[in-house]
């Protein structure tokens, strides 16, 4: 009998991470697609950083920041009583930061692809910025946004390095699918490794396949 906990945890972490990526990422994507402001280039580079930085480095930063002696970690623990490091919440934080750029990139491109005159037409018809975003920008950019969300989800399921640093490898608590694969190989449990690798491979293939079908334009 195989342990399904890593599968369950990975799904849970990925869903939360995707949710946060989409919420934070939509704001960032809209800001970078539609507004000019000082420090835009720096913000862009910061958000994209997880794409190029080694995941362990990212994990180390998060560990320092969110650990019990880190500034943010202490604040959360003292005021809210929430511990992040070495819990499944740590895995969510790591996966969110790692998947954010994969969401922001296509979402930004999709928002940039929406004809500004359509937004202006909506404003001229008496709509507020929020109404314009809700009724024009997002509906017209939704393919790119959905594609970004799926990519973010896929990235979150595959997250390894940063998660290992922040959440650790505690079986039954913080051991996600990709960490379980590493563990199985280390233990010489080839059968288990093959099974988990198979699941991940099929899953990633399906995601890319559907993203491609999805993003074919309609308008």
């Amino acid at each position, binding site marked *: 009998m195989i342990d399904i906990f890593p599968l369950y945890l990975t799904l849970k972490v990925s869903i939360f991470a995707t949710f946060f990526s989409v919420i934070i990422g939509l704001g960032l994507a809209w800001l970078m697609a539609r507004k000019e402001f000082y420090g835009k280039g720096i913000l862009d580079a910061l958000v994209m950083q997880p794409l190029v930085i080694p995941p362990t480095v990212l994990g180390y930063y998060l560990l320092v920041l969110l650990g019990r002696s880190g500034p943010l970690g202490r604040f959360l623990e003292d005021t809210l009583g929430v511990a992040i490091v070495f819990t499944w919440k740590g895995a969510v934080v790591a996966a969110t930061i790692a998947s954010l750029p994969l969401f922001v990139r296509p979402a930004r491109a999709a928002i940039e692809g929406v*004809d500004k*005159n*359509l937004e*202006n*037409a*909506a*404003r*001229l*018809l*008496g*709509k*507020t910025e929020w109404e314009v975003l809700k*009724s*024009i920008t997002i*509906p*017209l950019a939704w393919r790119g946004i959905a594609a970004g969300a799926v990519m973010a989800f896929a990235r979150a399921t595959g997250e390894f390095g940063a998660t290992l640093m922040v959440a650790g490898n505690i079986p039954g608590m913080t051991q996600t699918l990709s960490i379980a694969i590493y563990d199985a190989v280390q233990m010489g449990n080839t059968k288990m490794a093959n099974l988990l690798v198979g699941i991940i491979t099929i899953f990633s293939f399906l995601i890319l396949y559907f993203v491609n079908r999805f993003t074919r334009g309609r*308008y």
Partner: protein
Amino acid sequence: MSLSFHLKKRFRDFSIDIGFSTKENMSVLFGPSGAGKSLLLNLLSGIIKPDQGFVSIDGREVFNSAAGVNVPIRDRKIGYLFQDYALFPHMTVFENIAYGISHEPKNSSRVEELLDLMRLGGLEHRFPKELSGGQRQRAALARTLAAEPRILFLDEPFSALDYQVREKLRADLLMIHQKYPITTIFVTHDLEEAFVMGENIAIINNGRLEQFGTKEDVFYKPKTRNVAKFVGARNIFSGSIVSLNGTAAVIENPEIGKIKTLVDIKGAHLSIGEKITFGIRPEEIMIIRPDKPIDKKVQDNILDGEVLTTLGKGASHTVYFKVKDRDATLKIEIPNFAYRKLKLHKGKLVTVSLKKESIWIIPAEKTEVRG
């Protein structure tokens, strides 16, 4: 109903500085491509923020840089029909039209009424890409009117359409405009359209207002050489004033000779010897019929010469006429029946008359003005 504004905006390689007031129902912004017409509409509606100036619609200021007034676009109640219509591609015709109706519930009888008026009945469930160009344009106009704007901007609304459709839609638009008499600014680079649509015409060139006036004014009394060019006054010459006697003046140009003309007392502060620019519209030059005595009204400026070439243009003919023993070439526009009666052909010797009241004069300095 009125619109009054003066706006300035600098860009890296272009600047705009235009203002005028109008109480007319329909004013036309006319000028060549790249003159800044659409840009001006963007500045007026708040899509682009002007550097300086004011905009007042029906006496209410929506922008004033000095007073720090800048009403958001959504509260300006401006109806703006974009050149590409900007219909929302993910909404049906019905949803597009209902979009700007603010009072809940989305009043469907108002939409029905507009669908009817715009001859869009039966198309309300189609998406914009399933419509023809003309239908799209009418849907966009219906959407604009549904929001009950205080002023309407039409940015080259017919430029993307075929000639036949265009003429039909122009008539439609004028009919709709009578039914909903909203102050309208109509942008075009098509001269004929400018004259069909507008009571007042603002001629814009290179980000500046060249002239603003009634169509008769800009047509027959251009104030600058550019305006003369844009309104199709092809015969433009430089000259100087030889004599002045009340309203009667004689001007001289080395290519044509001496020409008698009339000057507008209030308009022109001209003096003898002053350099001027003058011209006459092609359709104001008469070709004299040799078999008839010359009418007294056209006796003044008689020129002999020969026909260089003729061009048929549908309803009329263009005749290029070279003045005898001189270099000047005049462009003459005559109706087809006159062309046939005169039996014109290349090389034919004819006599023409430049009616003195049809000649316009502007001081030469005005021609140096550049934006």
